[in-house]
């Protein structure tokens, strides 16, 4: 009788312990150490920081122009090492009119990284997965509603060389599939190894030289192509040019 009661007591105790344990779900211990990395983008034209509206620039073909709007997506940021680090849900919309958008901080596993990779644009999956939010919110004005997909890169302005309305220049670059997929995977070796350490912040500064837009892989003359606003051959050619516009300006380990 006593032993039966003891058995029941033991079983009930086991129940209690199970309940207490299951109600206090502990997150699995994460032993990996984490530091932070601030990534700065500086939009330049031949090493001179871009000034919207008032800045007057000349492309390699002697065509002068002003830039009134510059927005592009940087996504799928990856820090490369033997154990690479991929930023989860990595989507950033850079807007030259909003300086705060040009700099962001990510949490990364402590490690020594030798290069950084990212995609200029939004990967194809997010282009076909319905309504998104945050950087990918269609309200950000970077989504085509007639041919679903993100505008990966948008530069607007004006130039005397443009023969369209108000001498406008307007390059809306997009298209995520097929031969005219404009997604550009950029890998930049880091001039100094990026040492991400627990509790510390390292900084990478990347320059984006818009002068590369006009030539490199393909020749883009304003007089010939003042605008493109759809996926296609022209979009692809311009994307192949801006593929070359990114360089590492500085790596700083705190």
């Amino acid at each position, binding site marked *: 009788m006593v032993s039966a009661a003891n058995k029941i007591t033991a079983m009930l105790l086991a129940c209690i312990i199970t*309940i*207490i344990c299951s109600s206090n779900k502990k997150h699995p211990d994460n032993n990996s150490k984490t530091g932070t990395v601030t990534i700065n983008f500086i939009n330049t034209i031949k090493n001179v920081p871009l000034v919207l509206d008032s800045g007057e620039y000349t492309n390699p073909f002697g065509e002068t122009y002003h830039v009134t709007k510059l927005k592009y997506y940087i996504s799928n940021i990856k820090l490369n090492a033997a154990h690479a680090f991929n930023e989860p849900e990595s989507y950033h919309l850079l807007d030259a009119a909003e300086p705060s958008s040009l700099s962001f901080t990510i949490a990364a596993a402590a490690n020594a990284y030798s290069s950084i990779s990212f995609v200029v644009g939004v990967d194809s999956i997010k282009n076909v997965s*319905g*309504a998104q939010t945050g950087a990918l*919110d*269609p*309200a950000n004005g970077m989504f085509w509603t*007639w041919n679903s997909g993100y505008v990966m890169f948008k530069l607007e302005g004006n130039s005397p060389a443009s023969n369209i309305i108000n001498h406008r220049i307007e390059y809306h670059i997009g298209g995520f599939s097929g031969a005219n997929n404009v997604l550009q995977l950029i890998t930049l070796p880091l001039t100094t190894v990026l040492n991400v350490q627990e509790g510390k912040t390292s900084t990478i500064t990347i320059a984006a030289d818009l002068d590369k837009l006009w030539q490199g892989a393909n020749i883009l003359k304003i007089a010939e192509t003042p605008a493109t606003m759809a996926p296609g*051959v022209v979009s692809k050619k311009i994307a192949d040019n801006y593929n070359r516009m990114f360089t590492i300006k500085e790596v700083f380990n705190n």
Partner: protein
Amino acid sequence: MTTRVIIALLIFVCSAFLFIAASKKQNDPYKPTYLKLEIPKGWPQPAKDIFANNPLTEQGFQLGKKLFYDGRLSKDGNFPCASCHQQFAAFATYDHDFSHGFNDKFTTRNAPPLFNLAWMPLLHWDGGINHIEVQPLAPLTAVNEMAENIDSVLKKLRKDTAYPKLFKAAFGTPVINSQRMLKALAQFTGSILSCNSKYDKMLRGEASFTPAEQRGYIFFKANCSGCHTEPLFTDNSFRNNGLDLNPYLNDYGRMRITNDKNDSLKFKVPSLRNVALTFPYMHDGRFYGITQAIDHYSKGINTNQPTLDSLLKKRIAISNAQKNELIYFLYTLTDTTLIKNPRFSLR
């Protein structure tokens, strides 16, 4: 003594359960009623689950319905989604080749009906829209349709007293953003099924065809079902059915999306369900009646077009008697349950 210990432990265990249950309720008051899209018997599974990242709930559906009928989604308040997608026309625009939008403008294509969208991988006549959730952005922002912009619509919704509560019921918090608005709309439009026509009832053994309807059905299966495949009455492909280019519209259809000249003049095969309600016909509504549409396939096809569909290289031979029987059959595709269902109506 031991009995007392056991009783005490039992009480402790019970109260622990109650406490956990109560604290869970407090932490998570978001209790939507989950729904499941019922696949009608004998239908294929949709190629992808449109609700995979947008769990279908009664609250989400009701919010979507309110948005669908709300004129504030348009610039001047006059053009809710429902202005061009009318329930009595199986959610197409009744009796209009082109629908009317903001500032007396016309659309440039015939408004498609809305039903069975879960089986439609690409939307629009040219398949330009790749997901049901982003579909509303096209009419909402088009200057000849609702002529609005997303931020402006969201501001109007946030000012409303009812919407924050409805968004909270649907999504757990009162936050109103474009993603939630679009997901709610998708829950409403994606739930609209047409599966209760006389044809469906005949298949289920609940009704029987007249001899004329039956002969029309046999003709249909032999001549039309290559594109208008049962049970959805479309295979959702893009095909050139031999219509001459409308010089006012210069609409090359699918080619605008793919940039591929092989897609010139190709348009999505529309479902023939509710075809009696969705006149006028074709992407530009050029045929007012079913008879004219059938005559196109027997007499009108422009056989000189290089991208003409291979199934239509020979026009379809049809006698007057067969034509009448075909029309009798097509009338059996009208789903009066759909057009009268109060679940999809503004009450």
